[in-house]
């Protein structure tokens, strides 16, 4: 048996077995759950060689499975994140009900994502894509909150995307007679102009939905925040990257003869930038950490989409690097929210504050992830952001630079809100009992956060597989031009040498930290957050000094004109309009036998009247 078959069968069988093991024994179930992700991951990374394919035929469709160098980058995200989060999930799900179905969908969606990357033909691609969609849908509705609204919205948008993709696939098949992705790529330049526009746009809708591109993003905030946090890390970190993966496939390999700067790329780059800006502004306005991170994910994917759309070597490097980074830091953050939610029962900033002394490790992981998210050196996020800016400037997209920069500066607002809302501020008595999350939850967070740190100093570690992947889809080698192990360069040869920077920053930080901390450690004492100087008065015990309502009110007032118009509302209006039309459809069936008989007569008369037009 081929290794790829074995891996997929382990995923599928593991999912089913894990589900039923839950009826027998909880520990067995947890162990099976971790194994059915860990074992395929190990098998995949040890035994599956990139660029070696197997053929199979199902239902008359020729399928081709195998991993490209390019797909391998994404498999790193999917399986790496999947394995790490699976440990977290075991601890996160302890004591909840419907654990079995959670595990089932978790394993299945990881398997489906890997399947997507393995598929070299559109039929299996679509099959895995849909499996991924419905398994993640079942995760979205898992909690049972607002399933009809959020769940249906997610699935409808996914279906719109999937069907757009399906349409592109069958149209392709009708032209090329083949479902292989390589065949489409080979044939594409000879197609008619109409097809040149239609096929990429249809694919783009398909992938744009999953990667939450404006204006197809409206499902994302609800879906991300409604999902159990253990899965949201994968959802936002890996699943949304499948959209990016597809987008690269289409934008780069399919239309590679469309030059850089072509309107098609420009439009998408702008959509990415708008996604980033609006997503960020909405994130700032949220009071719930899950929603905040959800909008933030939308915004971050906006950067990635912009990078992919620009499509120069540096832009692609940055987009792919950011994809991996986003999986790392957003995975960490969602897990942190999950940990906080598990320990305190809420994820709302207005309810909980001052957890830093109770959950220090969670704070540390969040802090690192936030620094990476904000793109501040020396953590990895900076490298991706830097490359993105430089690529935009080098490719003459000046307004886009400003937009992206605006959004990443405004991102500081919600970054701060996240850290302050949960960890800093007044320590309320109400949360005095809170303990640090179990080690099984903390360690995965720390591992991912450490990943951002390592990539900040040595981005070359991950840029070299990215480079290999990019060469596989037709780019020039970039090592030495744009990056070395710990140096990043732009097209003009300007560089950032990361290693001395990291050293310098740490040296300075340590020096002052020790200066402030160690020297005064012995003769200072900790005082509660009530013990503060408030214009000379000492606040009393019952006085509420927590500041969390309307946190960024002044800022939101400043940007209010932009936020007044919600895309969501337009969709709702559209939906209501459709419902009205549907109601008309329903009214045709009056339930009256006479009416139905009249319909028959009228139908006959119409047919007889137009018989020559219809059958002539």
């Amino acid at each position, binding site marked *: 048996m081929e290794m790829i078959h074995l891996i997929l069968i382990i995923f599928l069988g593991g999912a089913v077995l894990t589900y039923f093991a839950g009826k027998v024994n909880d520990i067995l179930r947890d162990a099976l759950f971790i194994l059915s992700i860990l074992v395929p991951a190990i098998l995949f990374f040890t035994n599956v060689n990139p660029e070696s394919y197997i053929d199979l035929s199902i239902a008359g469709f020729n399928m081709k499975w195998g991993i490209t160098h390019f797909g391998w980058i994404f498999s790193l995200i999917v399986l790496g994140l999947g394995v790490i989060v699976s440990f977290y999930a075991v601890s996160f799900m302890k004591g909840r009900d419907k654990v079995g179905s959670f595990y089932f969908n978790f394993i299945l969606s990881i398997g489906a994502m890997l399947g997507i990357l393995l598929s070299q033909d559109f039929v299996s691609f679509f*099959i895995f894509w849909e499996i991924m969609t419905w398994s993640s849908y079942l995760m979205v509705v898992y909690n049972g909150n607002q399933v009809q609204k959020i769940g249906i919205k997610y699935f409808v948008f996914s279906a719109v995307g999937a069907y757009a993709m399906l349409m592109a696939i069958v149209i392709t*098949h009708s032209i090329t007679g083949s479902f292989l992705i390589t065949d489409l790529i080979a044939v594409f330049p000879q197609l008619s102009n109409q097809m040149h526009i239609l096929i990429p746009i249809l694919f783009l809708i398909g992938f744009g939905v999953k990667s939450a591109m404006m204006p197809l993003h409206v499902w994302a905030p609800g879906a991300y925040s409604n999902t159990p946090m253990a899965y949201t890390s994968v959802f936002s970190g890996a699943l949304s990257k499948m959209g990016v993966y597809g987008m690269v496939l289409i934008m780069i390999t399919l239309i590679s003869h469309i030059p850089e700067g072509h309107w098609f790329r420009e439009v998408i780059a702008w959509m990415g930038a708008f996604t980033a800006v609006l997503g960020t502004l909405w994130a700032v306005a949220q009071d719930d950490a899950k929603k905040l991170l959800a909008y933030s994910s939308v915004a971050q994917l906006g950067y990635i989409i912009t990078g992919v759309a620009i499509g120069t070597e540096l832009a692609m490097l940055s987009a792919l690097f950011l994809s991996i980074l986003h999986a790392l830091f957003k995975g960490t953050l969602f897990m942190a929210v999950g940990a906080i939610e598990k320990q305190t029962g809420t994820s709302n900033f207005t309810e909980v504050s001052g957890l830093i002394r109770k959950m220090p490790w969670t704070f540390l992981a969040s802090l690192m992830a936030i620094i990476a998210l904000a793109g501040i050196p020396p953590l990895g996020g900076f490298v991706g952001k830097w490359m993105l800016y430089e690529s935009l400037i080098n490719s003459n997209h000046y307004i886009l630079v400003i937009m992206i920069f605006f959004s990443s500066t405004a991102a500081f607002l919600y970054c701060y809100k996240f850290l302050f809302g949960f960890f800093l501020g007044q320590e309320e008595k109400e949360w005095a009992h809170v303990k640090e999350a179990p080690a099984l939850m903390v360690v995965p967070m720390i591992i991912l956060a450490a990943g951002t740190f390592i990539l900040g100093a040595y981005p070359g570690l991950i840029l070299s597989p990215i480079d290999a992947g990019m060469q596989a889809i037709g780019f020039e080698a970039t090592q030495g031009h744009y990056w070395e192990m710990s140096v990043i360069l732009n097209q003009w040869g300007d560089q950032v040498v990361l290693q001395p920077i990291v050293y310098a920053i740490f040296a300075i930080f340590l020096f002052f930290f020790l200066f402030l901390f160690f020297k005064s450690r012995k003769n200072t004492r900790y005082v509660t957050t009530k013990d503060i100087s408030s214009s000379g008065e000492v606040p009393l015990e019952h006085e509420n000094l927590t500041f969390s309502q309307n946190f960024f009110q002044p800022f939101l007032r400043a940007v209010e004109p932009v936020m007044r118009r919600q895309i969501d509302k337009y969709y709702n209006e559209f939906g209501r309009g459709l419902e009205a039309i549907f109601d008309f459809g329903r009214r*045709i069936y009056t339930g009256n*036998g006479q009416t139905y*008989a009249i*319909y*028959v007569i009228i139908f006959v008369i119409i047919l007889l009247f137009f018989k020559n037009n219809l059958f002539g």
Partner: protein
Amino acid sequence: MVGSPVLFIAIPLLAAFIIPLLGMIWKESVRILPGLVLVYLLTLSINLLGYVLDNGPIIEIIAGWTPPWGINLVFSAFSGFLVTLMLFLGLLVWIYSYRFKRNVDFEPAKKYFILLMMLITGSVGIVLTGDIFNQFVFIEIVGISAYALTAFYTGRDSAEASFKYLIMGSLSAGFLLLAIVILYSQLGTLNMADIARNIHTVKPVYKITALIFFIVGLGIEAEMFPLNGWAPDVYSQAPGPVGAAFAGIVVKSGVYAIIRIVYTIFDIEGAFDFLVIIGLITLLFAETAAIKQIRMKRMLAYSSIGQMGLVLVAFGIGTEAGVFAALFLMFNHAIIKSLLFYAGSYLVFNSKEKYINDVSGLGKSMPITSFLFALGAFAIVGLPPFAGFWSKLYFLIAAADSGMIMIIALILIVSIVEIVYYFRVVNKIYFSKKEAHVVPQRPTFNALFSMIVLGLIVIIIGFFPDLITGILHDASRDLMDKTDYINNVLSITH
């Protein structure tokens, strides 16, 4: 050859008569006999189908008159496949309803099984016969048993539904008879093959009028818009398994008749486009009506109508790939819609008004039924890796190959509507709070068995579509080859 196609009509008809007689001797035989008959017929049809796939169609002459004078039955790959499918579904209906209302009297059970036997006789007859008047007779048999089955619960609403069905059925019969009369007056024959051979000699005006009457008459059976007003009422009032039988068996025979008319008998190209258009309209109105339904079975009924519309579109494509897709769609619709009717009627079993809201939160108390319903919902909207996906894919490929891009777009948009209303129900089952007044009903073992069989088929075909595609290819090739059909029938001698 192990048997003759004539047995498919003779045995169940005979059984229908014997049931009340046997019932006088041993009451349980009323329930057992239909099952034995159906098992025998199913094995027979599978054997015959195997034979036919190797050796070409079986033409059976009745009463010694050779075509075009006598009545003949045609058991080809196409009709054989449909017969097998119908008998299989009939068997499942029997299993499902074996203990149906056992606590009630012996009388209803007797009537029920007699009518079921007649329904199956008629439907199988429609598919097998090679004579249009004979087909008309079978349609009437189906109709009469179907009216009675609809009114099985003898309530006000079911009587009303049955009456509506009766009105529409009579209209249908009238138009069919008109069409037959027109053809007979022009050609002097009732044999399908003979008509098909000579149809080019008929003047267009007669030809087209006859076709229109056929389409209207058969369209009522096949739930074509706007002739399908009876369907929602009938589905929602008839007992659950009967709804499944209608969706899986009766409507299939109606569609078969239309297809036979359009593909084999007439040579009018416009009819194909007409099928596409009318199928699309049916699909559109049915799905939009379905989304606004608040009752479970009505929703399933509209969905069923919509699926038939899709099947008509697929047949209207007119290529072999289109026919193949249409047959696959029919197969999936039969399996999945039966599953949905079975599971759905158990979910609303104890609810008075059969509202969709009443299924809320039943996922916990009826895990297997809920799971099977969800499986059916996933499959019917075409999610991989379940059976419905493949037929949808084949359909889209066939449509794309014929250049119907806008139609694909329209159908996909409608599919989204379908997703919405099915997923609403699934969400309600699993993720909503239970309604206090609803008492969950444990399915009987038989019902569970037939549902699980259907569920397994959905999953197995989903993973191994190759199991079915071979037969479907043969069947679609068989339908496409018109001259072969004519020659086979007319060359037959004693």
